[in-house]
């Protein structure tokens, strides 16, 4: 086995041959390097896309902080090597290594992979392969690292079940310590791999796929999902933290430019709006907020530890944060003269107040983003995002009037029940918004329209629906392209074939593993990169596997059908989701659940979690009374 020293020497000779060699050397401010030999448990955290995208990831930053806080554990990092560097690694048979100490990944006890989106799956296989770790769990031996995964895409873990030893579902801050404790105990007491996984499977929020078996009916649907290990739970319930724990403040400050060079603070977790297409809004319940005082003290600490020029206040719907105006005012008065940009993404149109806009005015922002998603009243009711067009226009006017020259609007096409009339309404709304900008800034006003394609996701009210066909989506995109060919409007959209891939993977079952494996074998990787994505490789992979892609993307699931992810409970019951789907078909909405509880499942199923931290306010109505 190659030593870290030998890897270092190899890097010295080879890094100048690749683009952005700074991706592969670490050495950032606030990097934690612990003595390898003196630390008992070695964890590698992996983001399966390039450094530039992975470094700012907040989820991994939290885990890096949590693990490195423990004396007996260390956490190091690695990212997907770009194609040029991968070639060098493969040519010289150099295994993938960690940035901190250059240890090959195979030498770690635990590998934690974040899977925030599905189009990162082939990269995950590639990283395991580059590390010399058997790709399938069944081929791994006791000496191999345990491979864990978590993140938004793992709420339907089945397509990746053959490759990942265990999944951690939900909030990671507490469960990571339980995972580490078990692996430490296992290492101390010489447990074998199956013994360790057995113990892990008994921890709330951990899913070990090898302890379950599936059966399929002749028509291809899932017929049965059974536990084959007596200790493994029938249903795996996600973890939630009752109160958001103190977040990291020692953010890694990269030595090269990455996608977000900033302090990221999660001001609130969860969302109460219940947009029916929104996966994140369903799986991250309940809504928990941080106090303004806490946020300010985090910013203070993080500024003195990083020197970053930008702060991002993150949440799924930042203007719904109950103290948003106070927060912005305090940040403004405290940091105004410090050349600091405040990014407040994900503002909800109906809760963006004039005060918020005034508070943000003058901070170094490029464009202002709003997400109406749909432009017709009918469709807005379908997706449960009932924001009148007039509201969008009024807010846009206020934004342009405060000096912003550019607004960015997000739309989603292909929603259930969408007609061409709904598509025309999108272009009409865009033109009206730009007209408001022109009243203020004349021809300097611009509008950037971003058109995404709706992909039905597991654990949402639309988990049963059939996705639109490639042809339908292309037709709608062409109409918008034509109608929005207007000076001042710039349009971009996602490649519908990439949306197809997302659809297959996000509602796939265990058989999909073979498709992912075959696609990777055919050279698929970096599927999220437009210039790397190979649609034909995926189609061939389906063909070879004998599975029909349309079965996964374009088929409406039956009311009684067992869904591949039904054993995963993300806090929202199937009953609630099904009822919400029916309401959608009737054009009925269920507004903000902070006003009225619709019994999604969080309160009854997480009573004990809430009781552990009495007095903690969740934004659920009953919580307000507590």
């Amino acid at each position, binding site marked *: 086995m190659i030593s870290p020293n030998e890897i270092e020497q190899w890097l010295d000779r080879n890094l100048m041959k690749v683009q952005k060699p*700074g991706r592969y050397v670490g*050495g950032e401010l606030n990097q934690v390097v612990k003595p390898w030999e003196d630390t008992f448990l070695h964890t590698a955290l992996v983001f399966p896309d390039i450094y530039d995208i992975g470094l700012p990831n907040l989820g991994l930053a939290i885990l890096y902080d949590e693990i490195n806080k423990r004396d007996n554990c260390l956490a190091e990092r690695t990212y997907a090597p770009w194609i040029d560097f991968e070639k060098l690694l493969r040519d010289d048979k150099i295994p993938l290594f960690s940035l901190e100490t250059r240890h090959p990944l195979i030498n770690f006890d635990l590998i934690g992979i974040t899977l925030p989106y599905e189009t990162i799956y082939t990269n995950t296989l590639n990283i395991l392969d580059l590390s010399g770790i058997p790709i399938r769990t069944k081929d791994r031996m006791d000496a191999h690292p345990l491979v864990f995964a978590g993140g938004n895409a793992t709420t339907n873990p089945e397509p990746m079940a053959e490759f990942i030893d265990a999944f951690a579902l939900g909030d990671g801050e507490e469960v990571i310590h339980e995972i580490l404790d078990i692996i430490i105990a296992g290492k101390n007491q010489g447990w074998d791999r199956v013994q360790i996984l057995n113990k892990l499977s008994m921890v709330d929020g951990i899913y070990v796929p090898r302890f379950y078996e599936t059966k399929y009916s002749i028509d291809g649907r899932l017929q049965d999902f059974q536990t084959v290990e007596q200790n493994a739970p029938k249903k795996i319930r996600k973890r939630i933290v009752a109160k958001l724990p103190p977040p990291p403040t020692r953010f890694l400050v990269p*030595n090269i*430019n990455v996608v977000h060079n900033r302090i990221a603070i999660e001001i609130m977790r969860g969302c109460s709006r219940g947009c029916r297409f929104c996966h994140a809004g369903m799986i991250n319940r309940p809504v928990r907020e941080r106090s303004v005082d806490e946020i300010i003290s985090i910013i203070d600490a993080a500024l003195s530890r*990083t*020197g970053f020029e930008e702060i991002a206040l993150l949440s799924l719907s930042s203007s719904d944060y109950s103290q948003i105006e106070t927060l912005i005012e305090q940040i403004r008065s405290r940091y105004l003269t410090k050349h600091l940009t405040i990014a407040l993404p994900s503002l909800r149109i109906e809760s963006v107040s004039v005060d918020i806009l005034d508070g943000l005015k003058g901070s170094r922002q490029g464009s202002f983003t709003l997400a109406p998603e749909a432009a017709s009243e009918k469709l807005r009711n379908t997706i449960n995002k009932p924001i009148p067009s007039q509201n969008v226009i009024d807010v846009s006017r206020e934004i342009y009037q405060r000096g912003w020259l550019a607004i960015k609007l997000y739309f989603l096409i292909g929603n259930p029940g969408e007609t061409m009339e709904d598509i025309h309404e999108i272009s009409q709304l865009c033109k009206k918004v730009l007209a408001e900008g022109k009243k203020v800034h004349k021809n300097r006003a611009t509008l950037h329209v971003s058109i995404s394609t709706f992909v039905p996701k597991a654990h949402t009210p639309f988990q049963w629906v059939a996705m639109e066909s490639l042809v339908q989506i292309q037709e709608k995109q062409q109409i918008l392209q034509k109608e929005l060919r207007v000076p001042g409007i710039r349009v971009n959209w996602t490649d519908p074939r990439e949306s197809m891939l997302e659809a297959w993977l996000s509602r796939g079952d265990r058989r999909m593993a073979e498709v992912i494996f075959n696609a990777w074998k055919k050279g698929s990787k970096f599927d999220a990169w437009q210039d790397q994505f190979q649609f034909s490789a995926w189609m061939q992979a389906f063909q070879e596997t004998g599975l029909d892609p349309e079965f996964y993307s374009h088929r409406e699931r039956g009311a009684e059908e067992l869904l591949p992810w039904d054993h995963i409970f993300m806090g929202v019951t199937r009953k609630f989701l099904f009822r919400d789907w029916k309401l959608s078909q009737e054009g009925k909405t269920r507004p903000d659940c902070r006003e009225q509880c619709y019994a999604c499942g969080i309160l009854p199923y997480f009573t004990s979690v809430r009781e552990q931290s009495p007095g903690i306010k969740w934004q659920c109505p009953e919580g307000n009374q507590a």
Partner: protein
Amino acid sequence: MRIRFTYHKNKPLRYTSTLDIQLIWERACRRAFLPIAYSQGFHPQARIQQALPLPLGFTSRCELVDIWFESDIALVRLTQDLQNLKTLGIEIIKTEIIPENAPSLQKEIDKSEYMVYPLAKLSVDCPSRITKFLSMTTLPRVRNGKPYDIRPLVISLALETTSSPHISMLLSASGGATARPEEVISSLELEPYDFDYVRTKITMKVSSGS
């Protein structure tokens, strides 16, 4: 107040570009709450100026940067507050006050000196290649699609057979007449990736007096 720092750019930062080095200085000042000056306008930029961009992959014992501050600060405090840059790979070796209206760093530079260390054993005919190079009066090359003559840009070139053998070179670094050491290596028909490059000296034009 305009301050000139002379510093070593050490191994950990050798893959960080000149533009990103600028950000490292800016952030270090921000962490220490030093009153770094910003330009006016919609997109204020920190007032930081560097001399002669160091190619990616090189280390240096003589980098120069000028930073403007809004108010006067004791040099002792500056050095102290910025000392932690050392762990990142910036080691400050000199801190001096420069008149506000002094010419820009880039304009003052005349020559730069490099030591180029082989990563493996140096080929035996290296001395004869150097002799051949020096005997020529012109040596046309192409860089980024543009033809130029590298020979007049190389002021001196020698093989140093000390305990750690290396090639030393003094190159023109004035305005448009700048030679790159890896191009010199390539002109010697050696593989540029087989060497480790260190910039050891930047010489200013005589009039500036530094």
